[in-house]
């Protein structure tokens, strides 16, 4: 009675066929990408060294290192972080702690989704029109950072919201019941218990901001700018700067006869920075999962 009939055998064959098909599909997505990344590292290996990071590009960007663009990217990321983090965190606090189910909340959520979905080149146009021209800041680190900040705002809002929502509601009620104000409750109980989740969002924002090219291209980044090597304060807030992402674009498309190792090296440093920060965020999240206080 329990012997396999033709039909069940066909079912089993089907079952394993579908499983293999889906596995293959997943492998096809993941494997080539890993291969590509290894290939990039392989091509870049000869040039990767501390000097590569600390020397300026020379000879019309055909040799030397990436100090000026690297420092520029650090400036852009840090300043955009300084602007986006507080606004993003408070926006998430509003959405998770204060807002009620209303059309207004709905519109804000839609706006956040859209802010994340606007093409980066449109953000660039906005930055050019609003900060560079209208506000009169001119093409500068400040204008580019403001553009990046608005662009990366949704990243911080999304992860902060998630972190806040993970704090049980009963904690808030307990605080209200003893006469704590809403802000005291958020400040003393909700935020300290969601800080790692918020930090994850901040790290992701860093990684996103570091990799963006289009938004800084017309708002503050330049093809080439000579700065003093070794001086971490070489750029001013209203100066233009080089940026790693833009530098990769420049030397791989705009400048002829750049040695391969240089372009691959730049690509790998940019990729490495971004992946490093993402890996950090992931590690933090995993660690956080194992260390709940309740």
């Amino acid at each position, binding site marked *: 009675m329990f012997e396999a009939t033709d039909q069940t055998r066909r079912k089993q064959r089907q079952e394993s066929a579908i*499983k293999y098909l889906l596995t293959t599909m997943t492998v096809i997505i993941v494997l080539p990408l890993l291969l590509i990344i290894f290939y990039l590292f392989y091509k870049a290996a000869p040039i990767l060294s501390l000097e590569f990071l600390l020397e300026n590009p020379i000879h019309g960007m055909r040799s030397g290192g990436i100090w000026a663009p690297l420092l520029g990217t650090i400036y852009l990321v840090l300043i955009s972080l300084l602007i986006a983090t507080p606004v993003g965190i408070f926006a998430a606090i509003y959405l998770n702690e204060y807002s009620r189910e209303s059309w207004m909340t*709905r519109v*804000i959520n*839609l706006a956040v989704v859209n802010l994340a979905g*606007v093409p980066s080149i449109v953000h660039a146009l906005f930055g050019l029109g609003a900060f560079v021209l209208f506000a009169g800041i001119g093409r500068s680190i400040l204008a580019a950072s403001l553009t990046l900040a608005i662009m990366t705002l949704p990243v911080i809002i999304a992860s902060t919201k998630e972190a806040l929502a993970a704090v049980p509601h009963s904690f808030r009620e307990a605080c209200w019941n003893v006469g704590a104000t809403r802000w005291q409750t958020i400040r003393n109980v909700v935020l300290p218990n969601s800080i790692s989740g918020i930090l994850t969002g901040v790290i992701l924002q860093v990684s996103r901001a570091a990799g963006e090219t289009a938004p800084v291209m017309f708002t503050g980044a330049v093809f080439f700018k000579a700065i003093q090597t070794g001086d971490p304060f070489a750029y001013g807030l209203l100066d233009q700067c080089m940026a790693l992402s833009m530098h990769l674009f420049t030397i*791989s498309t705009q400048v002829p006869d750049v040695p391969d190792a240089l372009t691959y090296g730049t690509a790998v440093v940019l990729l490495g920075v*971004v992946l490093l920060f993402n890996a950090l965020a992931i590690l933090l999240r995993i660690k956080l999962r194992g260390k709940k206080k309740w």
Partner: protein
Amino acid sequence: MTPGRRHLEPLKEWLIERFIWLCGVSAIFFVFAIFIFVFREGADYFFSGFKAGEFFTSIEWYPTSRTHVRYGALALITGTFSVSFLAMFLAVPFGLGAAVFISEFCPPRLKEGLKIVIELLAAIPSVVWGFIGLTIMNSLIVRLFNAPIGLNMFNGAIILALMSVPIIVSIGEDALKAVPDSYREAAVALGCTRWQMIFRVLLPAARNGLLAAVMLGIGRAVGETMAVLMATGHSIRIPHGVLEPVRTLTATIAAELGEAPVHSDHYQVLFIIGILLFTITFVINITADFIVRGIGRK
């Protein structure tokens, strides 16, 4: 606290609440600001010399011609959509397949690992993708297809597909996860194979979420700039095959804005293209959001 300071508690709280509210609504403000400032830069030309008919129906894009300047964007629009749809044609089956695999077949440990890898893939900057298209894909396509140039629609579509896959996988996986386990149990209890369960039960139940995943993938593909700028070649015409170079709307802005004199007609037309892109992605994102959350529900 002295009684006097206690009196100030409600006022202080009110001020903090206003400030937080302000940050909350800033997202709305920024979206409006993007529209207004981008439109503002192109408004002069939009209301005086702009010929919408030519813009949407002509393929003649000669913004710097000395004798006869023409702004026909049809080839660019076609470029954007042909690359995006080809990318989706490649990305959707694989993305959804991987989502089903991760959600339904994958052992838990491997699942964690795969999700991390996919998250890392989503983080790769677009300029690096462009670089991959320019170097690795370029030579691969020339060798494999004997194509005259490797920078073409196919190259761009593969790069865009690889970029969109992580979005489709992660949102698709969320959608599948949201299908209650009781559905799966009921299907198994009725003697369905997993194959039948996936096609008859899971995919229909997660339909909206999967549709939204695909739409957000399209949104990302349409808006992508650096990767297509570097990978698709630069030929402004309507493509007749996948191995022909094309130019997209985004790439046009990126390539020409630096050269166009500020407030010239050419410069303003580029901002009008920006508004067109804004509108397209706006509609896609709103629609995807309505699909996910349900139109009637608040």
